[in-house]
């Protein structure tokens, strides 16, 4: 997968490294600020607070 992406990045090695870094940063930002906030409350491992439990 990573080899495939690397090969499809245009430009010189320097440009490719830059693009790769930007891609990684974009994926991290997407996960941290969009995906995790949505997914996290649905995870079963989340500490349960509700009737019968003392919260958090």
């Amino acid at each position: 997968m990573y080899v495939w992406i690397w090969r499809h990045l245009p430009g010189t090695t320097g440009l490719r490294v830059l693009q790769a870094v930007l891609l990684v940063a974009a994926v991290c930002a997407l996960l941290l600020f969009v995906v995790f906030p949505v997914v996290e409350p649905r995870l079963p491992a989340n500490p349960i607070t509700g009737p019968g439990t003392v919260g958090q």
Partner: protein
Amino acid sequence: MTSEQSRGGWDFSSDAATPAGALVDVEEPPAAAGRHSSPPPAPPRGPVTGGGGPRYGGGGGRPDGGDALRTVLRGVGQLLITAGMVLLLFVVYELWVSNLFAERKQQQVHQQLATEWRTGQDPLKGQDRLNLPIGKQVVLPVGDGFANLYIPQFGKDFVKTIVQGTDDASLDKGPGHYVNSQLPGQIGNFALAGHRVGKGEPFLNLDQLHPGDKIIVQTASNWYVYTVLGNVQAYNAALKLTNASARSTAIANALAATDSQGVPGREIVSPGAIQVVAPVPDHPDQTPTRALLTLTTCHPKYTANQRMIVHAVLTRSVPNKGSGLPRELPGGTL
């Protein structure tokens, strides 16, 4: 791209395994050479893929079984590494990014409450009198702020707006009030829950509270000063001990000491121990005579196996007028 069509999008098999790989080889060098006078058309094909051309004799043949297996294994390996990185990133989210989101929500409820107070809209609407008896509860909207919590031991500027409710969404905003427990200053138990690590972590340092420490609650009409229970003399004596482990044991004992009604300063309980937020903590059958405050949070840090509970008793209250602070707070005069 051509290889995309031939192998189907996200496939992580190397191009070396497909005839299309040869096309890329052909296409790339001219582009690179045009921009840069970079060396020969031996692009970063790398040792990883082993050079497609020679192996497949010009790119016409299908990979044999061993190569297909290698491709699959490499793909699985990369997928597992990726999953590991995503999980690590999730830890970063839980410990750090979730605080950024929670801090913003806390600021919103804090400012909303300040605006309500400024315009004379007290969410407690006349229910908030000094030392109210236990009785009829005012119904507060879940998720809305109605009081401020000051704990000087957590830092000079530690102030959090308390919201109604202990559901996940409310606790994301700040310390949450157990809806069936009493209100600030009321006879009974004003019980709050807060996150220990992440999501604003208002009660991160709950283990730093000691007998005699002050916890101050501000409502639109009053300041309520609560004092952490436990044996203050034993705590002060424990501070003089030089042996570190003996000292921490003595401090824990001073905190665990119960008062005349059987309420300790601090206790560690299982998550199901709801009696700690009863009007008389740990004694649900008794009738309350004092105004208590209870803070609950996860324990130990980073886990949810147990709950750390701190109990405090109302020792003083003054009307909340103007911008004056109670003298238990830095710069306070009231």
